């Protein structure tokens, strides 16, 4: 697991779900399981921009593209553009 992935998982556990004891890995469903809601998705998208140092247009992202941490990074790689 890369540093970026771990950073994202730590953020979701401590700042979004606020349950540091919960087990989350790259493939844990977050949106479809109800662990995170629409408001949290916005926070996660912004954190993803910071972690990857890319600009990710929400117009190119659907909630299903953010369902797992693995999918988040795949989405960032697909639609993200380097920050100026």
């Amino acid at each position, binding site marked *: 697991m890369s540093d970026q992935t771990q950073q994202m998982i730590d953020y979701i556990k401590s700042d979004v779900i*606020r349950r540091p004891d919960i087990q989350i890995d790259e493939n844990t469903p977050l949106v479809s399981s*109800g662990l995170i*809601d*629409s*408001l949290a*998705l*916005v926070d996660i*998208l*912004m954190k993803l921009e910071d972690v990857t140092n890319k600009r990710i*247009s*929400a*117009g*190119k*992202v*659907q*909630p299903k593209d953010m369902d797992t941490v693995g999918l988040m990074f795949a989405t960032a790689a697909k*639609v993200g553009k380097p920050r100026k």
Partner: protein
Amino acid sequence: MNSLTVVLAPGPVHYLVCALLVCVAVAAHRSQRARQLALLLASWLFYVGWGAGFLSVLIASSVMNYLFGAALKRHVTAGRLWLGVAMNIALLGFFKYASAPLAGEPGLGFLHELVRPIGMSFWTLQALSYLFDIYKEEELDPSLLEFCLYMAFWPTVLTGPISRLPTLLPQFRQRIGPSLDDLSVGASRVLQGLFMKMVLAEILAAGWRPGAGVNAGFDRINGNLGGLDVWFLAIGFGFQLFFDFAGYSHIVIGAARLIGIQLDENFDRPYLSPTPAAFWTRWHMSLSSWIRDYVFLQLASLRRGRSWVYFSLLLSMVVVGLWHNASATFIVWGAYHGLLLVAHRIGQQVKRSLRYQLPQSLGLTLSWASTFLLVSFGWLFFRTQTLAQAIEMSRAVFAPGSYSDLSMPLTFYAVTSAIVMGYAMYHAGEALLARWRVANAPDGLHAVAIELMDFVLARRWWWLAPAMVVVALFVGLAIGDLKPAAPATPFMYTLF
């Protein structure tokens, strides 16, 4: 009357021809195109029953959006997307609001045929989601025939559920052939929906006798209503709307399932929601998820900062209100729910900062009760004809002295209480059964009991719906002259 007029006019012949076309579609094993064409013709024939003018608008919108989609696929640009979005909003605005006053102008009388095409608010959102999905570079490649079928699909064309092309397209391309399970579930859902609409929603709307239903209470514009009257009317209307629209959704989902097509769910026990945020993931789910995906997330990520996210949430809920109708009452209703969602989020943050936490069961009960009452209060703005009436009724809620006045017939309170309690007991029974299932190991007699229970529950609407209609009729007759007022309320969401 010529034979074409007989076929096009809504009635037994019209529906029989539609049904025959659907049967042809199901029977067309070999050709995908023949199957899709038969389904499309059935869908258009079904829709033309509401007016040939409406069908021409639907076809024009389908072709226009298909062409916009093709142009967008060639060059994915924000300009092309927003041109398509603007055209759809302009068409919706024109046909929903501008065509009626214009039809009265000299020389524009033909517009009478085009005023407020039924279901336009729903299928316009379907078209927009297609354009947004192409912009997101989803791999969608419908033919014109498939796209027209997606827009006109007969179970969903009138009032949803608002479907997405990635859900329907693969199913349109499969051989349609309902399994025994599809037939059983489909028929059960249709029966459940009919029971919810024709019995529960109608009894709440019209009451056991004329003047004793929710409609009569809200239509009494100048009547003096006490606080308790207003709460009963608000809660009664909330359940009437739920049984009406969720019932309709059951019928639609069941009808589609009867030909082997699975639609997305539209309701999931919304009145058991413990928070306003949870309510909006369970009420009119196809609309709320559409607004979340294509309005809220786009808006909220434009700028950073907590206050911008809250503003986006508020604006998204105003859009929900506007989608229903561009009137002050619906805008206030949408804004009210936006404020509830923002207040809930701020409340969560405050709660986290406090050291004291309520016991979990007490906290959950209080949270559910306050959500239920706040959502019910909001229905006043949804149902009243004017903002002045909504404010007048709201005043009674905040006037403790008015609670001693009961101005509705006693059967209104009895029927509303019985239906709300019945709904609560139904779900309590479900929860108890689920707990019993978990507590008992599936062996021996328990295994047989669980199998039997699953079999009976899976088909409960086969026997429960007719049985409850018969019981209700007998009870009504036994009480004497109490008999349900004639069902007269159309499906409520056809008005949007």
